């Protein structure tokens, strides 16, 4: 299946812990993104990488650190988790300079307790 796949689908963890979310795409895209969907369903871009290079870094706390080992993978590591980090995190990918739009993963629902 050609897709954007994220793991895990659900993540429940305690405040103060460190966790990672993984994302992989096999669409041959060269740009990958992380979006956060909050409790009001608002979608906001966090980061984007093109060919392993960071190109967008919105106002996100330093506790969030993306890592792109290659253009097919973009992982998100979160340190010292806080209650406000609870959200659904979506990975997406696209071809740079393409106007086709983005393909999204199925999301990771993070709950911090």
């Amino acid at each position, binding site marked *: 299946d050609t897709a954007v796949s994220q793991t895990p689908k659900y993540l429940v963890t305690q405040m103060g812990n460190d966790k990672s979310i993984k994302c992989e795409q096999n669409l041959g895209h060269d*740009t990958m*993104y992380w979006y956060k969907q909050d409790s*009001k*369903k*608002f*979608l*906001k*871009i966090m980061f*984007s990488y*093109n060919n392993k290079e960071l*190109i*967008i870094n919105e106002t996100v706390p330093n506790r969030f650190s993306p890592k792109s080992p290659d253009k097919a993978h973009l992982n998100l590591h979160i340190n010292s988790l806080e209650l406000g980090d609870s959200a659904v995190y*979506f990975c*997406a990918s*696209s071809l*740079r*300079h393409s*106007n*086709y*739009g*983005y*393909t*999204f*993963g*199925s*999301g990771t629902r993070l709950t911090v307790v």
Partner: protein
Amino acid sequence: AQRVTQPEKLLSVFKGAPVELKCNYSYSGSPELFWYVQYSRQRLQLLLRHISRESIKGFTADLNKGETSFHLKKPFAQEEDSAMYYCALLNPGAQKLVFGQGTRLTINP
């Protein structure tokens, strides 16, 4: 700066009635606009792009540059259309897809 506004958070219509989900944008360049749909607890799926002028699942959207709008329409709503709908604008220079706040559409039987 680019901005997308969906003025209705919630929209409820009866099955068989026409549907219009509003979207307005502000952007200084030539916009590339999209509609995405998110069914309950699923991923966002691309519904349509203004550039292809296509009709998907009976939905259409016309870009009106004079009114800076890209409203989504369907003449006869079906129950399976109930979902969250997002209008989005792509800034090609910044390579950033910016979303509106979303409209939750509910089709009543």
